[in-house]
């Protein structure tokens, strides 16, 4: 967890009341990621659409999985932060979160970019937990890179 009680509360809140949990249709791609050192697992689906201006938008991220409070809460934060953003903006958030997690506690997180993701700043001091925090984000990154092709070609599972 985090050393900061406020951050602790945020993580616990996402853990107990996960946002956007449960697998939904429509989606283009579903991925399954595991953390082989501890067995945490996540199934994650992405749904991308094109808006009127032709921009690719993250219309939905849905997920299901099992794991510790960190891995589950970070999946919830991901869904909360990223759904509704353009893919470009969403990738910026993902990159910001990855950098924060790799910072070993040296970065001051950007709340405008990461929202509740800032609560994980303290987790980055615990290398063993960084993989937990990144599980959903790596899964999302993987799903998105597969989904981009199909959204361009207009293939979506209902």
């Amino acid at each position, binding site marked *: *967890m985090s050393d900061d009680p406020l951050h602790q509360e945020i993580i*616990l809140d996402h853990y*107990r009341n996960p946002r956007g949990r449960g697998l939904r249709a429509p989606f283009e791609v579903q991925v399954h990621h595991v953390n082989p*050192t*501890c*067995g*945490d*697992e996540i199934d994650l689906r992405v749904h991308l659409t094109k808006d009127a201006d032709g921009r690719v938008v993250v219309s939905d991220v849905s997920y299901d999985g*099992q*794991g*510790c*409070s*960190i*891995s*589950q809460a970070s999946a919830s934060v991901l869904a909360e932060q990223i759904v509704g953003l353009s893919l470009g903006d969403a990738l910026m958030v993902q990159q910001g979160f990855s950098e924060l997690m790799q910072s070993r506690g040296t970065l001051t997180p950007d709340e405008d970019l990461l929202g509740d993701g800032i609560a994980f700043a303290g987790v980055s001091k*615990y290398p063993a*937990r960084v993989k*937990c925090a990144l599980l959903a984000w790596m899964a999302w990154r993987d799903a998105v890179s597969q989904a981009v092709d199909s959204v361009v070609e207009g293939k979506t599972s209902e």
Partner: protein
Amino acid sequence: MNAVAPLDVARIREDFPILRRHVRGKPLIYLDSGATSQKPLAVLDAEREFYLTCNAAVHRGAHALAEEATDAYESARARIAAFVGAHAHEIVFTRNATEAINLLAYAFSNSTDKARNAASLPDGAERFVLRPGDEIVVTEMEHHANLVPWQEVCAKTGATLRWIGLTDEGRLDLSDLSVITERTKVVSFVHQSNILGTINPVATIAAAARAVGALVILDACQSVPHMPVDVADLDVDAIMWSGHKMLGPNGIGCLWAKESVLAAMPPFISGGSMIETVTMESSTYAPPPQRFEAGTPMTAQAIGLAAAADYLTALGMDRVHHHEEMLTVAMLDGLGSIDGVKIIGPGVGQRGSAVSFVVDGVHPHDVGHILDSRGVAVRVGHHCAWPTVRRMGVPATTRATPYIYNDLEDIDALVEGVIAARDFYWGSR
């Protein structure tokens, strides 16, 4: 009545300076010896002394230092052999237990390959040649180190992997011994499970394996460090264990196998030091154990491990075992009586000191994290026995594994930490 004198833990702890450390601002309470043990000064001193006084390449060269280094290395082998009641020439040094299991697994796949090519094999190698229809038997409580290598052997040779299942309590389902049949060529199983703590009935399984002429292999990683083990009593063909779990250095493991078994095996890793004669066309190989120790060996590690064996012998392995039994009873009692905690593995009796548990509604990672913040080091996850945790119906466990330097106060700290973790996550639920 038990006449075994208790260990003087306070005295022992003086030999382990690392245990004076603080972590996360709290005194370190190390309960992860099942993953790796801490090392006493005697082991570190033995390694340093070797480098300071007689470092040279062993079994190569005829100068004085090389002779002394070779003597030190071979004397280490003899002391380590004596620790498990074996002859020195039946002990092969490897990098760790994983490599030792692979050495045996490759004896099967290499013999099979060579037989197919009509290449030369040692006398007796026929029992290592596998054909489709042959079977390898393991159990559902194996560390990945004693599972994955056999899956590989099956993929290479066409043999089939079978396994003995578990009861809900976490013991081998012995009504399932019908998996050992005339087709079985090898039975390889764990002595003490690293995750459930179960101590398996070696004699029963070995007898079933012997009755069909199968080779019997015992993974002794969690038994040799913790209880008296004598290969003469075990009636198995081979055992292996890692030095780093028994106070020894990293980078050394041991394989013990009967002389006749070692002699029948083709080499695993090949190169220098393991040959008899070499021509441009082909080579012949040294007798065991040299046949299986290609390249410059890990000399200082062997010497350090022998010092660890001496240290444990001086304490007395029966006392070590007795001490751990006391800690195990305290853990099973203390953890088992916490509301919301479930022990994953059997209760007292025929079990060792590896105690796994889950806390209702709290993921093991989170339990481990709270314990860590209190200075208590335990392991969380699937403990390299993924099929085992799956069989026990949990995603992962928290595991405490004490050793000679832990006392009842450490167990109290564990129990208090688990209660704190539970309360933190249960919160106002």
